[in-house]
């Protein structure tokens, strides 16, 4: 048993600091735990002294978790002009302004997709057969949990274009995945970020395969 680690687990709020714990770490506790484990390993290598281990644990755990927030969610400025870590908000096309204000968030999180009972290699192969390289590439980037902004940077597209293309593509992809896996199409659509308002004729999000 690692005593510094156990101390860290029993004092998580203290380790991450009240502000960071309340704003992000508590909600993202599995990542916080992973940062704590890595920090404890670093502390063990650094010293045998329990007090020094705790100090290293705190510093390293906070740094690792902040790195995670920067990489996954990014940083924005609040009303007072202070730089703060963004909070993950699922992208909802019916609230586009809010989504843009909050930052370009992941369209689908990897965890959501990873919970689906399916065979990813078979799904991937089926999508490669039925969709163009560009469409599959977009899907591959989306399920890694990258934000539309990050995907846009990779594909040399504007973030809004990434979101629009995904909204057009998503129903057909969801249908194909449901066929391959035998899952309910509604369930797959939810996993892939279903629209929360009824689709309007001719608007973004209409299924490209049913479009006349």
């Amino acid at each position: 048993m690692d005593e510094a680690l156990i101390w860290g687990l029993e004092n998580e709020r203290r380790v991450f600091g009240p502000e960071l714990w309340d704003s992000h770490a508590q909600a993202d506790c599995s990542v916080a735990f992973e940062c704590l484990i890595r920090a404890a390993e670093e502390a063990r290598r650094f010293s045998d002294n329990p007090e020094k281990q705790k100090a290293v644990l705190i510093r390293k755990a906070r740094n690792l978790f902040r790195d995670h927030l920067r990489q996954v969610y990014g940083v924005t400025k609040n009303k007072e002009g202070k730089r703060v870590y963004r909070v993950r908000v699922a992208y909802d096309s019916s609230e586009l302004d809010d989504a843009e204000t909050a930052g370009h968030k992941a369209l689908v999180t990897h965890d959501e997709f990873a919970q689906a009972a399916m065979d990813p290699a078979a799904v991937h192969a089926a999508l490669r057969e039925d969709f163009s390289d560009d469409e599959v590439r977009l899907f591959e980037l989306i399920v890694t949990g990258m934000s539309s902004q990050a995907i846009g940077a990779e594909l040399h597209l504007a973030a809004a274009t990434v979101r629009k293309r995904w909204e057009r593509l998503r129903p057909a992809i969801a249908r194909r995945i449901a066929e391959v896996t035998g899952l309910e199409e509604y369930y797959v659509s939810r996993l892939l970020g279903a629209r929360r308002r009824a689709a309007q004729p001719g608007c973004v999000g209409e299924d490209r395969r049913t479009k006349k």
Partner: protein
Amino acid sequence: MSAQKVSPSQVAQREGFPFIYHLLHMANLRSVAEHGLLSRREVDARGIGISSLQSEEVRTARAALLTLPDGSAVPLDHYLTFRWFPSTPVLANKAYDWREGKYSQANQEFLVLLEVDTSALEMARELWFATAPPFSRECSLVAADGFGQIPWDRLRTARDHHGDFSDVISRSEILVGNVVAPSYLHACVVCDEVAADRVRALGSELPVSVRPEWFFGF
């Protein structure tokens, strides 16, 4: 003369399945050692903080999808879920690198497969076998007294073809309607030695074994 009644765990052992498996995040090991394995609903009712592998979306979906044979609807998260063999589509998805198009153990270093003695099924207040993923159109439920009719041959074939989920039975789940006490836990299985050291650092008293082949470490 009526045939002697055989319990679900006796059936499982007779068919070559001495253990059942549950995938969890390493962060929950200490809580499991203290409280046992709990369903999501029980975790919430007891106010226990856990690191879930499920997103809010999936939790919502799992909260309303199960219709029992008598027509009553029970939230799926009322049940604790197990599998007859360790490879799970959840693990496959965690391991799958979509950009590379291949499996990698990089995302599995904090995951633990708990090996649980099938005798835990004897204590189940409610017990169902879902013949396919509960989200599937093909899913039907087998009651505890019908475990003899489970397609064991197909399950054995699925177990022996690790990572092949083409037969829907390979994605089936055992649904247990209450707590599984810590005394039924047999071992922790992880993907590599680093993960094993982490489990030991957490003070787990369960034996830890490393089975990379269970974690899509081809």
